[in-house]
């Protein structure tokens, strides 16, 4: 069973139809509202039947997102969203599977899974709402925090550790689609998500999503982001994509890379029945 073909956005399901009636726990002004909205708009554009989509998450502010949609969801445990999404897609290739969460969930406690999900190249879309901070635990440095950020009681001198580079690592590890968006430009994020879903294999969409409570200075991201990776000019060459990253200031948005790496495919079912297999034990 392959995922059902998705038609352009003229169908009957509207973005609103993909939202649940739950009120998010997020702070007013949180970037994640726009990401939620972008996911529902992308689903409407793709016209995925609600019952055929699933959003899997771990733990954190942004990981609350599945219950705010009206598709199937799994709000799991810290760091394990990707293997759950992997198991779901491998067992049910007919579904459109999203994985969503934050930078701590995905790149710290779930960092190993991130690397191997890129390598494995299962056909799913991973949306990381990156705000460079642990919000749910009230403001600690995350893997993407700058080394000199002194805003946390846990690391008052700053974390002093070079930030994790999600796009470089994704490209090195074999991710098939790599993009970055900004929650302050939600229509562009919709486009990135739609392209990510349509592209086969593992797709990473990093969305810079300000934490207005613990990182209020991130409000300035609307000035610092620049959409210089035009989706229609996405690189299909890894070397070129690496060179683009060397020139990246961390605020370039768009599609960095669209690869053609082999996509994880479950083995084709065969008609053998179990009784025949058991004959292998017979004396």
């Amino acid at each position, binding site marked *: 069973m392959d995922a059902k073909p998705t038609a352009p956005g003229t169908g009957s399901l509207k973005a609103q139809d993909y939202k649940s009636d*739950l009120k998010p726990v997020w702070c007013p002004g949180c970037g994640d509202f726009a990401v939620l909205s972008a996911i529902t708009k992308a689903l409407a554009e793709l016209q995925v*039947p*609600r*019952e*055929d*989509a*699933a*959003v*899997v998450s771990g733990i954190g502010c942004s990981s*609350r997102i*599945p*219950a705010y949609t*009206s*598709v*199937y*969801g*799994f*709000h*799991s*445990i810290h*760091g*394990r969203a*990707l*293997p*759950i*999404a*992997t*198991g*779901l*897609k*491998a*067992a*049910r290739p*007919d*579904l459109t599977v999203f994985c969503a969460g934050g930078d701590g969930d995905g790149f710290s406690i779930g960092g*190993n*899974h991130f*690397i*191997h999900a890129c390598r*494995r190249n299962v056909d799913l879309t991973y949306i990381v709402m990156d705000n460079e901070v642990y919000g749910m635990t009230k403001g600690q440095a995350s893997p993407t925090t700058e080394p000199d950020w002194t805003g946390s009681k846990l690391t008052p001198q700053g974390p002093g550790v070079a930030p994790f580079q999600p796009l470089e690592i994704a490209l090195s590890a074999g991710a098939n689609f790599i993009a970055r968006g900004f929650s302050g430009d939600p229509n562009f994020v919709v486009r990135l998500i739609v392209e990510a879903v349509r592209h086969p294999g593992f797709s990473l969409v990093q969305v810079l999503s300000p934490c207005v409570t613990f990182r209020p200075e991130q409000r300035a991201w609307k000035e610092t982001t620049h959409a210089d990776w035009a989706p229609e000019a996405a690189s299909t060459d890894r070397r070129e994509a690496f060179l683009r990253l060397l020139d990246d200031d961390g605020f370039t948005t768009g599609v960095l890379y669209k690869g053609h790496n082999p996509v*994880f495919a*479950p*083995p084709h*079912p*065969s008609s*053998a*029945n*179990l009784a025949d*297999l*058991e004959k292998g*034990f*017979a*004396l």
Partner: protein
Amino acid sequence: MSNRSVSIALTGSGGAGVMTAGQILVDAAARAGWYGLMARSLGPQIRGGESAALLRLSPYPVQSADDFYDLMVAVDWGNIERFASELPLHAASVIITDPSQGEVPPIMLAAAPHIVPVPLKDVAKEVTGGRVNMVALGLIAAAIGLPEDAVIDVLRQVLAKKGADALNASIASLRAGAVQAAAIEGVPTLAPAGQVPEGRWSITGNEAAGVGALRGGVRFVAAYPITPATEVLEWLAPNLAQVGGTLVQAEDELASITMCLGGSFGGVPSLTATSGPGLALMTEALGLGVASETPVVVINVMRGGPSTGIPTKSEQSDLNIAVYGLHGDAPHIVTAPTSIADCLFTAQWSVYLAESLQVPTIMLSDQAMGQSRAIIDKPADLAFVGKRLRAEATEGVPYQRYAVTADGVSPMAVPGTPGCEYTADGLEHSPRGTPSTQAQHHADQLDKRQRKLTDFDYGDAWAHHETFGTGETDLAVITFGSVTEPVREALVRAAEDGISCRLIALRLLSPAQPQRMAAALDGIKRLLVVEQNHMAQFHALLRAYYDLPPAVKTLHRPGPLALRPHEIVAALGDWT
């Protein structure tokens, strides 16, 4: 010793071919109509190092080791001191030793066995292309009365791709070894099987667990290799694909268990296999399985612990983590097979329970069952196939994934079902599944998750119980797992000596079954608890959940030393 069975230890350094010879011996015995099993004792080395093929052969069904080895054939004496204690001998034992490999180490002489020097290496040298392990094989086969035809049949199969020269060299080696057997006295010979029984299997416990998983309906497996569980996964890999299932090799056990939860959330019965350290990594996710009511099965093949412990050798010391290792109040199921053959049924039953009750189920196998190969009668298919209670949308009624029902089981929608979209959650939740911190929601959900397990009718499979001997008895042995078969053998012997005794082997370790246990213990005044770990974990579990008879004692010992039937018989005797 009686001729009911013969026990053989074939030892040598890695590369000497003792495992190959042992495997051929057990296959040939099967072909000749006998039953038997072969366990492996291995050192920690990846290749090489000390190794022993430990066999017991019999015209009758047998699935556990005897008290002593009747015949030990040492191809060499490399590192024997590391595992001599696992090879109990007695005065009637015979050791075949090759003088070119040096003196018999003193540690092997404690029981004063008969020593028979046979120049195995020189005999092999006289055969063109001769091999020492084949000489040893021929010697053993001749000594115990195993027909040469049966051995040659197996060799023909094993060496099919190696050509006629290899086969002829092996047959010549075999015959050269057989000539040497004439000098050996005191090794029990087995009666030929009257008729070769139909429908038998040659299978390991790990393979049997894989078959049981498929019979139970498992169609998604996530795998991370670990000794001694890997063979469960390696058997499943090609066979699962054959029946349309999917296997993913995970990056670690945190991923393998959560991949299974993902597959199961998708409606596909899911399973993984691991051992102690892997189970420890999985416990957080198992808690998620409990809270989100996502069925999953973990086959945990126990080895010596804690930590890396003794990966290649058996122990029953993961009982505590399996029963108590989850955080929070997390009711789940723990099962244990009672024999190599029963690994099939118990795995199948575990899938059935997990699916029926939407709960994680841990099956505690162990290295002694998992990596031993036995000749068994083909297990019956008992038609336990997991049936998850599915949900369909009802017009005008919002779907409640975690509805509080009378039996605690709530209909589960799987993705693809229109109108039932919900979010599974490890956060405590309302019946609808929305996160909740309310005391009432917490109490209701804890109650239902407990109730579905305690109210379920587990039927007769909860334990194997059986009385040995005639008439009433106030004496019972209670045990679980691979220790069950030595206990059974001990009780057969005790019955022959006029001592009646009841056996209770628990297949369901958790949740407790107090009413069934009370019935099983009816009239019992003396209870012996037998288990293979240092802390007597099983005894503590019984004390926690059951009313036990007035006199209780335990026979418990850590691995890797197997509990032998004669030790159990001895423990039955003294109640002062």
